[in-house]
């Protein structure tokens, strides 16, 4: 029953997100608004209820399964994919390598700097 109650909360937040999407925020997808609302709600409450904890962890366990049907939709776009194959392949590899190296380097520098400051103080 706890899982069902958690699921009901999640659906409620998603529906709320959809309503806000249509009324106020057409650029943000409904589920994303739902995610932000739930995050705000959790920050305000300061804890995760047992039902929400169970509902979300059960659902997230199966997240990879829910992603398969949209991924299979690639079958419809085989032509677009083939036309830009090399551009896509090079972009995916190079952009990932450069971005990951940059993110790691930047974070390392910032941590070192914060440590030095704390050492000085």
């Amino acid at each position, binding site marked *: 029953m706890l899982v069902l109650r958690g*699921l009901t909360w*999640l*659906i409620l*937040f998603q529906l709320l*997100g959809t309503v806000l999407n249509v009324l106020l925020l057409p*650029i943000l*997808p409904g*589920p*994303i608004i*739902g*995610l*932000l609302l739930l*995050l705000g709600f959790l*920050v305000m409450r300061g804890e*995760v209820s047992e039902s*929400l*904890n169970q*509902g*979300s962890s059960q*659902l*997230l366990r*199966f997240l*990879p*399964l*829910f*992603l*398969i*049907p*949209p*991924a*299979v*939709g*690639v*079958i*419809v*776009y085989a032509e*677009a994919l083939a*036309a*830009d194959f*090399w*551009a*896509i392949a090079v972009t*995916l*590899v*190079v*952009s*990932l390598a450069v*971005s*990951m*190296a*940059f*993110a*790691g*380097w*930047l*974070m*390392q520098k*910032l*941590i070192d700097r*914060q440590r030095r400051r704390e050492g000085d103080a």
Partner: protein
Amino acid sequence: MNLDFSAAWQALIHHPLFGLGITLAVYQLAVIAYERTRWIFLQPVLFSMVVLVALLLLSGLDYGEYSASVSPLILLLGPSTVALAVPLYLNLRRIRQLLVPILVTLLVAGVFATVSGVLLAWLLGAERLVLMTLAPKSVTSPIAMLVADEIGGVAALAAVFVMITGVLGAMFGPALLDLCRVSHPAARGMAMGMTAHAVGTSRALQESEECGAFSALAMSLMGVATAVLLPLLVALIV
């Protein structure tokens, strides 16, 4: 007796449960294969996608009919996206000391990751549809698919780009970070989670608990930041 095999075959593949049945079966086989071998090319979503595409082509079932059959799974993707708020909240609470480095890295490196990808593909002559699909490639699939759809890309292709990015990141990320002398577990986790999302996070968890926690945090923050900022940015520029 004259058995009508062709009619039976048609009844089988056009049954409303056929698509759901093969999806559940293939996914479970993929998970077992991955757990046995830990071979990164057998990443369950990627592998299931390849097998299911092959099955649809072989059986002649079109995607519209398949998609109707698996609609219960598609329906649950929304609440699952909302559910991502729970791990994000739990991670937010535990990592307060490094707030400034995290936020700065998120903004600067996050923008860099997104812009570098789109710019590179544009220079290489990719079409607009592909550019808009490549933009959210660094974030976890449910968010990337929603965002790609929102800004004029293709959700299905976004899922594929996201998976490839994640798998490459998990395979080569640790060696690349060693090469760049990134040694702090928080920095390594942040880099893997931001650019290689869930697959990178599962790799980061193998390094250490701290590395995994930062990776999970980075993945959620990057996902939410992309979901909120990218559609705004595209609306402003285009």
